[in-house]
C-alpha cells in the first residue's frame, strides 16, 4: 500500500517556540490516522503545514507520491479545524455552495453534491436557514459536510465529535468509515483516546514539537504492555506465592497479576493448575492509549512550553 502523505524532517520554528521540531512520519492510503498530542504540542502547526497554510521552515511533504504543492493539492484536502468557522449571517445552502466552489467544484457539481449530502444527513430543510439559527451540534454536522463535500483524498478532522450527541456522533463515525473505505485517507486529531482506539489504524503522538510515538494501535499497546493479566478463579487460595508473578490486586475471585521477567503466562497458569484451582478466565491486560498517553506526556514540560525562547533563529 502506497503512502498518501509522507513528512520528512518537518520543522517550523516561531519566535518563542519550536512548534514542530524535526517530525517525520508516513500515512498510508485509505487509512485512518490518529494525530495525538497534548495541548500546544504542535499538532495544529503540523496540520497547517499539511494543509498548505504554513510553509515549513525545513523538510519535505510528499503528497500522493509527489512533492506537495499548496496551489494544486489543497483542493484535494478537506480540513475541519477544531475551532469551527462559518459565516453566521450567510444562508447555509449558499455557504456550502461557496465553500465547495472555493475547493474547485463547478457550481452544478457543487449543487449536486450538497443535495446528496444534505439528503443523506437529513439536512435538507436547512438550506435557507442561517448558521446562527443552528445549534452547536448542527453546525458541527454542517461543517463536516462542507469538509468532505469535494471528495478530498485527504481529510483532516480536528476533534470531529465535540458537541455531538451519541446518535449524531455515530452517524459521523459511520461516514468516516465509509469515506475511508471509498479510498479517502483520514487524519484524525483528538484528545479522546477511546475514540482513537476505536477508529484509528495508526497513530503518532507528538509532544513539545517532536514525535514520541509512531505505530499501529495494536503495536503501540503491545509495546507498552506491562505483562499484566487478569485471572478469574472459582475460589481464591489463601496464600499465593510464586516466583513467576506478583499479585497486584485481588477483587472477589478475580486477580490482577504481573508476570516477572523471564517467565511467561504459562507459568502462571501452571501454578494454579498444579494447585487444582479451576481457572474461569485468563486475559492479558493491555494498557489503554489513555494510560500510555498520560505516562508519556506527564512530567514533560508540556504546560510551560509556550514560554521557551528559541536560541538559534
Amino acid at each position, binding site marked *: 500500500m502506497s503512502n498518501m502523505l509522507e513528512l520528512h524532517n518537518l520543522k517550523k520554528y516561531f519566535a518563542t517556540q519550536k512548534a514542530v521540531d524535526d517530525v517525520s512520519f508516513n500515512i498510508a492510503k485509505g487509512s485512518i490516522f490518529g494525530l495525538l498530542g497534548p495541548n500546544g504540542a504542535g499538532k495544529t502547526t503540523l496540520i497547517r503545514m499539511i494543509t498548505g497554510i504554513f510553509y515549513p521552515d525545513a523538510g519535505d511533504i510528499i503528497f500522493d507520491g509527489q512533492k506537495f504543492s499548496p*496551489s494544486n493539492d489543497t483542493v484535494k484536502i478537506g480540513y475541519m479545524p477544531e475551532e469551527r468557522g462559518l459565516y453566521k449571517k450567510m444562508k447555509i445552502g449558499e455557504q456550502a455552495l461557496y465553500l465547495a466552489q472555493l475547493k474547485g467544484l463547478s457550481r452544478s457539481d457543487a449543487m449536486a453534491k450538497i443535495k446528496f449530502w444534505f439528503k443523506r444527513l437529513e439536512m435538507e430543510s436547512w438550506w435557507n436557514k442561517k448558521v446562527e439559527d443552528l445549534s452547536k451540534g448542527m453546525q458541527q454536522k454542517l461543517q463536516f459536510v462542507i469538509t468532505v463535500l469535494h471528495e478530498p483524498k485527504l481529510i483532516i478532522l480536528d476533534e470531529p465529535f465535540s458537541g455531538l450527541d451519541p446518535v449524531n456522533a455515530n452517524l459521523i463515525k459511520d461516514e468516516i468509515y465509509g469515506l475511508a473505505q471509498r479510498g479517502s485517507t483520514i487524519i484524525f486529531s483528538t484528545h479522546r483516546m477511546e475514540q482513537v482506539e476505536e477508529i484509528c489504524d495508526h497513530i503518532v503522538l507528538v509532544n513539545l514539537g517532536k514525535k514520541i510515538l509512531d505505530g499501529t494501535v495494536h503495536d503501540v499497546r503491545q509495546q507498552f504492555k506491562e505483562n499484566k493479566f487478569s485471572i478469574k478463579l472459582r475460589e481464591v487460595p489463601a496464600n499465593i506465592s510464586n516466583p513467576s508473578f506478583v499479585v497486584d490486586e485481588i477483587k472477589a475471585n478475580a486477580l490482577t497479576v504481573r508476570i516477572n521477567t523471564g517467565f511467561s503466562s504459562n507459568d502462571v497458569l501452571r501454578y494454579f493448575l498444579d494447585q487444582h484451582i479451576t481457572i474461569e478466565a485468563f486475559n492479558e491486560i493491555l494498557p489503554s492509549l489513555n494510560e500510555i498517553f498520560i505516562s508519556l506526556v506527564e512530567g514533560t514540560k508540556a504546560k510551560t512550553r509556550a514560554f521557551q525562547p528559541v536560541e538559534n533563529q
Partner: protein
Amino acid sequence: MNKIPLVIQREYLSRVKNKRFILTTILTPLLIVGFIAGATFLSIQGKGSHKIAVVDGNGFFKDNLKGSKDIAFEFPQGVDTTNYVAKGYSDILLIPKFNGNEKTHYILRSKKSIGMTTQDKIEEKINAAIEDKSLQDQGISRARLDSIHKGSQFAELKAEQQDGDSVKESNQGLAYGIGFASGMLIYITMFIYGAMVMRGVMEEKTNRIAEVIVSSVKPFQLMMGKIVGIGAVGLTQFFMWILLIFALTTAAQAFVPHDVMEQVKTLQQHGGAMPGGGMMQASESAQKIYDVKHTFATANWPLIIGCFIFYFIGGYLFYAALFAAVGSMVNEDPQDAQSLMLPITMPIIFSFIIMTNAVQDPNTPIAVWASIIPFSSPMVMMARIAYGVPDTVTYVQLITSMLSLVAGFLFTTWLSGKIYRTGILMYGKKATWKTMLKWAFAKS
C-alpha cells in the same frame, strides 16, 4: 485556479442583497435632499423680522437710518427699555449722544438673541447712516446722496480667467462647492467602506472561518477579494445615488411651469439675454434656473467625474488594505480595533483638514504637496481639480499624483497582505503596531 472572482462575488452579493444596503442606498439621497430642504426652510423661517424701536440722543438718525426687508427702524416717543416689548417692538436700540470722534457704543436690547447676521446688518445700517450724516454735514444734499447711492448699486463683479487668447468664465463658488463636496464624499466613503473591510476581516477571524477558507484560498486572494468586492459595493452605491439624484432633479423639473422652461431654453440659446432688446423680459424664476444651469455648465464635468472615480478607487484601495491589516490583528476585543485604527484614521482626518484649506486656496505649497502624496491625494487633489486642469493643477502634478497613488496602493496592499497572512490565523496574542511591522517585513 484563481478564486478571487468567487470571493469577490460572495463579498459583493452578501452585502448588496442585504436589506440594510438597499435601505441606506435609497434613503441617503432622500435624507440629504430632505436635510437641505429642511435647512433652507428653517433658515428662511428663522430670519424673523425685527421691528426696532430707536431711542436716539442726537436726533439725526430718523432721516438717515434705513431699514430693509426684515429690519424696520421706528422712532416712537415714550418708549424705553422697560416697555418696548409691550408696545410691539422686538428690539430696542439705544444711541447715546456723540461726544467728538470717540467710538460710541450702541446698545441693542431684545428678548430673543439677535444672531450674528442680523447684528452685522444693523451695525452696517448704523454706519451707513453715520456716513450719510457726515456727508450731509459736508454740504451734500439729501437728493444728491440718494442718487449717488443708486449709482453705486450697478457694479457687479464678473470674474473671468485668461487662458492664452481666450477668456472664460471663472467660477470660484462652484469650484469651491465641487471641490469640497467631492473631497468630503471621498472622506466619508473611505471611512465607511474602510471600516466595512475591517469588520469583514474581523468577522472572518473571530468566527474562525478564516482557517477553513485559507486552506483553499491564499490569504492574499481572500483579502483582495474582500477589498475589491466591498469596493464594488461602494461603486454600486454611488451609481445608484447618482441615478436617484438625476431622477429626483428630473422629477423636480416637472414641477416647473412649461412656459418658464421655454424661457430657460430661449435664454440658453441666446447666451443669457432675452432676444428682442429687452422687449421680452424673462421671468425671475426662468432667470434663476438659467443661472444655475449656466453656472453648472462652466465646470469640466467629464474630467471631474473621471478623476473622482479614479481617486475614489485609488484612495479606497490605499486605505482599505490598511484597514484589512488592522482587522486581521484584532482579537475578540473590538476595543483593540479602536486603538489600532488610530494610525490610519489620523492621516485621513489630517488630509481632510488640508482639503478644507486647499479648497479655499488651491495653490499653497502644502495643498500642492498633499495632492501628490498618496496618503492625502484622493481628498486634496479632488479639492484642487475643481479649480481647473491645467490652470490650477498642472498635468505634471495630476499625472504624478495619479502614479504615486497607484504605487501607494500597490505598496499598502503588499504590506497589508503580509500582515494579514499572519494576523488572520493568530489568536490570543494582543497585537501592536510593532508586531504588525515585524510580520510585514518578516521573510515569508
